[in-house]
């Protein structure tokens, strides 16, 4: 082996190491904190955990009455974590489903049926992605009140899909648009309806792109904290992120960190399972369209 390529390998390896540490360290740090006892949290080494314990996670689920006793003269509240988990599952699963169905239908219309001006429709829908929801709180809240959805999970089910919809419509329609006409035509010639051709041929073909759209939707929806905490007021109606933000960090820091992991680990696992499909789907959409 000549010395030059040896150096190259070392350089490549250390870059990879640096990239990995940069990406994983904050996550590792949060995981380690959640496994600590209060004693170790204050006096131990911040980077490692000597006596890992799950007691913070267990305490998260303890719900004896309204409080968990006092620290000095300060009341420690208990939190309806089970409700939060249920709400989170409903909202996330529902929003991803709504996003996917609405964007598949729209993408089929724009990519296959191509009504007049379909390029402009696509551009307008995609452009709406850049509008920050942060500047729309006041009118959004009015919409929510008009629909009688204040303090209701349905408010999030109506707003969350729009977070990821523009991007999902874009990649799905780019993919559909550049599939050759012949894909459906043989089925249509044999007398199948458009719906049959869609469900039997187009949908199975586009599975990777649908996976990519779904993971993108999940990641986007799971990163919202602001809308959830603005729209869900009652403690029992909150999703995990909105609920965690109501915890008193000064008293329950370890509990909050455990809550963070409680929400993050399932989402990360789902994303990890589909990670390769995500990249494959994005690539497929980009080859066909972009």
């Amino acid at each position, binding site marked *: 082996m000549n010395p030059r390529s040896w150096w190259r390998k070392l350089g*490549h390896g250390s*870059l*990879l190491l640096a*990239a*990995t540490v940069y*990406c994983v360290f*904050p*996550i590792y740090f949060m995981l380690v*904190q959640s496994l600590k006892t209060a004693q*170790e*949290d*204050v006096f131990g080494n*911040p980077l490692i955990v000597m006596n890992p314990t799950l007691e913070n996670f267990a305490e998260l689920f303890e719900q004896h009455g309204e409080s968990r006793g006092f620290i000095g003269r300060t009341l420690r509240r208990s939190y309806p974590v089970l409700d939060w988990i249920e709400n989170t599952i409903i909202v996330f699963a529902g929003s991803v489903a709504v996003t996917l*169905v609405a964007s598949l*239908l729209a993408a*089929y*219309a*724009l990519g296959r*049926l191509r*009504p007049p001006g*379909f*390029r402009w*429709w696509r*551009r307008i829908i995609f*452009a709406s*992605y*850049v509008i*920050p929801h*942060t*500047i*729309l709180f*006041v*009118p959004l809240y*009015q*919409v929510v009140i008009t629909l009688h959805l204040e303090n209701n999970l349905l408010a999030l089910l109506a707003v969350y899909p*729009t977070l990821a919809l523009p*991007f999902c419509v874009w990649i799905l329609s780019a993919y559909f648009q550049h599939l050759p006409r012949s894909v459906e035509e043989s089925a*249509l010639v044999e007398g199948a309806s458009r719906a049959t051709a869609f469900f039997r041929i187009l949908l199975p073909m586009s599975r990777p792109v649908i996976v990519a759209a779904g993971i993108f939707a999940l*990641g986007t929806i*799971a*990163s*919202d*904290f*602001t809308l*959830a905490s603005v729209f869900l007021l009652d403690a029992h109606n909150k999703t*995990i*992120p909105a609920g*965690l933000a109501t915890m008193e960090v000064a008293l329950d*820091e370890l509990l*909050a960190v455990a809550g963070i992991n409680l*929400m*993050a680990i399932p*989402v*990360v696992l789902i994303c*990890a399972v589909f*990670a390769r499909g995500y*990249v494959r789907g*994005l690539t497929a959409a*980009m080859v066909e369209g*972009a």
Partner: protein
Amino acid sequence: MGRARDIRLAYLLLAPALILLVTALAYPIGWEIWTSLTDLSPLNEGPTAFVGLENYRRLAADPAFWRAATITVVFAAVTCAVKLALGLGLALLLARPFRGRALVFMAIFLPWAYPASVSVIGWYWTLSPPIPTAYSVFMGNMKYAVDSALGGGAWAFLSVTLFNIWRGSSFVGVFLLAGINAIPPELFECAALESKSAWRRFWLVTVPLLKPFLALAVFLALTTAFADLANVWMLTAGRIVYPVIGTHAYWLAIHGGQFGPASALSLALAPFLIAVLFLLFRMFDPPEREPA
């Protein structure tokens, strides 16, 4: 099967997506444009008056507005540039096969997959610990050093910036990796024969080939920049002293009851966003070839 029927079907299928977008985006924007021209406020007696561009005129005369606008635009521009550079680096690092690539890919995918709604809570409270913990002394010293050099609130603002870069570079990296996969490898191989210098190859081949994907990545990164900012701002009930436009407007509306000026303030970012959109569409949406 007639063309007219297809077109009708197309509009029918577009309807659910459009209804969602109109309810959650178009209507609120319309409301804001109208309100920004009035003095609507729950504190006002009597009917709401149409005041024309008065709210905008007052904003333009307010130095605090220009400071908030500058901070917002600089924040967006800086985080986007850094996310793009880091993301491109990560994508190129993963572009060629090597042993353990799957593992490194997973690591790079993690910051985006880890839900920001909760990681932002952990990240923020870790960098500004409210209670004594094993790391709070170190973080406290950092905060002190940064704040005394750059002014109060600088450390908190820096921590949001870092968070956004950390999460965004992961997304851009994975996104550009997908883009690189979409480019036929022959194009890169030809380039390797043409030029020996990796640096020249990067600027003359890789960047132009990736241009549409880079533009798309900017587009996507921009939105998360604002979303992360809002997340932290809500979390700390506005304790971040650096004013930024979107959240400042929310404060003005909810706590000041001044819907008119708040709407004008919210919309002040529009020219910036439209300019960016215009540029990006020109880059990633070239005049389409007619499909055969």
